[in-house]
């Protein structure tokens, strides 16, 4: 057993934490873009494509993210664990975001679509100018919840060799043979990130609420 000072422990974990954090923007951006795109397609009732997207969503929902991670890592022959991790987590969470976006679109009153069409906007423009800007208020809480799960899922990616916070923790443990404080610190790290995300979503919700201070029911 080797003594590792608290400061050194924090430094090593900090490096891992940075790696964890650096994955997040990519995963969030890709799954948001993918989810919005697929959610829109899913709402436009195109026969074959709809079934394919549904199948994708169902499959993703039925497989643990860890397995997706391994599947991506070993099938795509990706050299980089980081790329595998981003791809796997994005693919996995896109499925959930797709469902959230589809639900958000479904919650917009029919009259909004009709009014958009009545001023001769094409479907894509109705989505872009009228529907999608209105879904955020509805879906932000669900979206925030999903991204909190995403943050927690990043705890898996050390299995494909990403040197994130859990990997860093294991390095320290191999020196100290004392897992408890390490896992406690890692727990605190995840807790802080998730709580920040939660707060961010509360702030965002307030901002989104400003323009639409009318209760939903009144504009149906």
């Amino acid at each position, binding site marked *: 057993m080797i003594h590792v000072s608290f400061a050194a422990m924090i430094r090593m974990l900090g490096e891992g934490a940075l790696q964890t954090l650096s994955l997040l923007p990519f995963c969030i951006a890709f799954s948001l873009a993918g989810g919005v795109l697929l959610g829109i397609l899913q709402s436009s009732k195109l026969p074959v494509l709809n079934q394919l997207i549904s199948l994708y969503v169902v499959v993703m929902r039925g497989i643990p993210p860890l397995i997706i991670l391994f599947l991506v890592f070993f099938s795509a022959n990706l050299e980089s664990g980081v790329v595998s991790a981003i791809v796997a987590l994005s693919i996995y969470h896109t499925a959930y975001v797709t469902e959230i976006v589809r639900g958000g679109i479904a919650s917009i*009153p029919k*009259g*909004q679509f*009709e*009014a*958009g*069409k*009545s*001023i*001769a*906007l*094409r479907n894509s*423009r109705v989505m872009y*100018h*009228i529907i999608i*800007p*209105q879904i955020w208020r509805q879906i932000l809480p669900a979206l925030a919840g999903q991204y909190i799960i995403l943050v927690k899922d990043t705890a898996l990616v050390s299995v494909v060799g990403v040197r994130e916070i859990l990997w860093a923790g294991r390095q320290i443990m191999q020196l100290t043979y004392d897992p408890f404080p390490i896992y406690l610190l890692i727990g605190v790290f995840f807790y802080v990130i998730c709580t920040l995300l939660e707060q961010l979503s509360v702030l965002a919700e307030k901002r989104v609420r400003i*323009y*639409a*201070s*009318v209760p939903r029911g009144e*504009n*149906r």
Partner: protein
Amino acid sequence: MKGDVLVEFDGVSKRFGETVVLENFSYQFREGNTHVICGRSGAGKSTLIRCINYIEPIDSGSLRFEGLEVSKQTAHEVRKRVAMVFQQFNLFPHLTILKNATLGPIHALKKPKRGAEASAFELLQRVGIGDKARSYPAQLSGGQQQRAAIVRALNMNPDLILFDEPTSALDPEMIGEVLDVMKGIAHEGRSMIVVTHEMGFAREAADLVSFMEDGRFIETKPAEQFFNSPEHETTQRFLRQILSA
């Protein structure tokens, strides 16, 4: 009877599941008319006008607007020339009144932003809410919202405006202000088809009034004749009911 044929229904049928709303409906709406359609709820009035701008696709028959067959392919073209005002206003709550009124002209008619905004301001002035251009729909009263929705329709400079029970969702004290705006449009000679229960408006502003029941026009007459000497018994009964109410 003014002008050329604007909208031509020729043997149009429309059903929702088992319910037949229109069956073999034929009628020609002419240019320049304000045509009021009245009748009990469920008569098919709203469905009829919603077919014109392809918000509802027809099941069979032929429907032409300005000679153009209304279909999925032509819907975009038709909607550039036919505007609609809804019972529930359906303003876009996340956009200012000005943006509501310029979205169509800018993105569908490809008008320059400046021009679209200038005409929107002018129209907002005209309907008495010039000071609301930068407000959001939720900040307006119901009557103001519907007037804003009329501006959104007018700013498309349409050949025809469809009104789908425009005052039915309004508090009574706000109905007058919306009807006044509609009367103004009618007097300009713009073609309008108006589904409404407001018989005062029909009497004052309509060129033609139709009574609709079971998906058919039971009786269509110039406004004065319609109210003073309705021929059909069902029309008489309807008028007695609605006017005594």
